[in-house]
């Protein structure tokens, strides 16, 4: 049996959540989907805060939910990070992180020493004595992550942990979160509406829509072949994998990609479809990342036209309807695709 094997059925007046989640140790699952798709309900059901109407939850060989079995939230080894942080406002950062151990009967001295180590790992060791009111949004969320990890959960549930943060702060924390989740020795579920989260932090994506699973796969699969419009909009992101030395990335197929971010080792290079420029002849501009290929599909995508090109393992480009017409884009057309080095974000592979 898998490390996490869950079938969550929660009935509410007017809609039903019916989702199967299976994951192995070390998996990081991004859970995406429109508002009301049931993402938060799924997370809360797994945590044991919302009762199942049907189904089961088995984690690391322990049955948490089944017919006639219902383990209370506090007896499940889950860690939870909430969008609003929800640090206890009357406790210092270190007391917040120590809370989980304290409530399981560990002595204060020991629990707080451990909590300080977690705070240091999340780069907020010097803020241990502060109350949440004296922390910035990013700092508070780091403390919240430390609090969830400090209980050494087997299932880590993160409910939009970055969405309340400023873009820059979220970016820094995203990188760190990716690192901690990669080290995490259980299953992590990350609810998000940000494609970057799903593409850079997770190794699998679960797309929910209308209470069910609309699609499931690796981030690259979901990005290349989105099953619903919402997924297309959400995860429409080019992800190329390769090995980086300095700002040069050698892709798996031998192509070379240039970014402005220096990195070493296996990386993912991400860029938005809108960052891709299509031309009919070989481009003359300064863009150093260029591929020639054949158009495989052309489809309206909101205000733009989404074009798939069979270069670099499959590229997605969004162009305006006007330039689509001017370029004569149709399946089979030969085009050049270019992307500027400055448009590429580079993430270390897990």
């Amino acid at each position, binding site marked *: 049996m898998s490390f996490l094997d869950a079938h969550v059925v929660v009935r509410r007046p007017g809609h039903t959540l019916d989702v199967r989640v299976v994951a192995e140790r070390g998996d990081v699952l991004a859970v995406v989907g429109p508002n009301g798709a049931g993402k938060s309900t799924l997370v*809360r059901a797994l*945590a*044991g*805060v919302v009762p199942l109407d049907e189904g089961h939850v088995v984690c690391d060989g322990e049955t948490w939910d089944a017919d006639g079995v219902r383990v*209370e*939230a*506090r*007896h*499940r080894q*889950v*860690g*939870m990070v*909430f969008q*609003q942080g*929800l640090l*206890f*406002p*009357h406790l210092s950062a270190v007391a917040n992180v120590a*809370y*989980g151990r304290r*409530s*399981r009967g560990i002595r204060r001295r020991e629990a707080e020493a451990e909590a300080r180590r977690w705070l240091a790992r999340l780069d907020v060791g010097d803020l241990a004595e502060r109350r949440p009111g004296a922390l910035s949004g990013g700092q508070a969320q780091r403390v919240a992550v430390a*609090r*969830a990890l400090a*209980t050494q959960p087997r299932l880590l*549930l993160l409910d939009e942990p970055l969405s309340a943060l400023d873009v820059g702060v979220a970016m820094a924390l995203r990188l760190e979160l990716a690192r901690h989740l990669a080290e995490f020795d259980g299953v992590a579920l990350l609810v998000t509406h940000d494609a970057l989260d799903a593409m850079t932090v997770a190794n699998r994506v679960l797309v929910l829509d209308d209470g069910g699973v609309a699609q499931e796969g690796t981030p690259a699969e979901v990005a290349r072949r989105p099953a619903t419009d919402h997924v297309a909009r959400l995860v429409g992101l080019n992800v190329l994998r390769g090995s980086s030395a300095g700002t040069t990335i050698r892709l798996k197929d031998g192509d070379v990609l240039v970014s402005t971010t220096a990195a070493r080792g296996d990386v993912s290079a991400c860029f938005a479809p809108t960052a891709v420029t299509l031309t009919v002849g070989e481009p003359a501009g300064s863009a150093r990342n260029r591929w020639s290929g054949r158009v495989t599909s052309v489809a309206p995508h909101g205000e733009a036209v989404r074009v798939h090109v069979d270069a670099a393992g499959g590229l997605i480009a969004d162009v305006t309807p006007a330039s689509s017409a001017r370029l004569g884009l149709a399946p089979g057309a030969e085009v050049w695709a270019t992307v500027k080095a400055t448009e590429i974000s580079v993430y270390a592979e897990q």
Partner: protein
Amino acid sequence: MTRPSGAALGRPPARLLAPALLGAAFLALPLVALLVRTPWSDFVDELTSPEVLEAMRLSLETSLAALVLVVAMGIPLAWTLARVDFPGRSLVRALVIVPLVLPPVVGGVALLSAFGRRGLVGAPLEQAFGISLPFTTAAVVVAHTFVSLPFFVLSVEGALRATDREYDVVAATLGASRWTTFRTVSLPLAGPGLLAGLVLAWARALGEFGATITFAGNYPGTTRTMPNAIYVALQADPQAALVLSVILMLVSVAVLALLRERWFDVALQGAVRT
């Protein structure tokens, strides 16, 4: 939205201002009169007279004893009303509020019907243990508790409801039992409302007259609290009545000062939420 300045809207009409002024004066006048008529030259002598001292001591003891009972029963009651979904919850809440609006003397009669020598509980209590509650100091404490518990429960329930219930979820995912959550999260977060409730309840107990004199009587040293002493003194020694009244008034003003701003808001929320 910026508030329109008074000048832009014209002068406030006299037909509103005049009765407003009258109302304010009507409320202030008796308090001013009380201060004017108080025999300040003999204040300390009156204050240290055996009767006054005894009434003050008794009032302090009984009101504090009542406060202990109020906290012991009130916090669990408030928590249950705020956090447990059970059938008949609105009925229980209504029952909690009744003593708030009940005429105190009716409260006293009701207490006699329950705990009097021939009362519902009082009669078996006396037969079995020989315990008779009415007209004892314990009866004063019971009367105080009866009238002040609702203030405390409403205030604490309001404070508990005002704190995010998600904190309970967080604590549960961190392995805390509901008791631990109550102790370490809910109660500390409801602290201001709890303090407001304590002060309100204490003030109510200290000033309690109707239920006390009905249920506990008015015996010097055992049931003659400050309000009871004022009632007696008005006939025999008006000077002492004035001194005692001024003291109770000062306590009320001090309570008001303590409860200002945040605390008061919390307490009011509690009362309004009913």
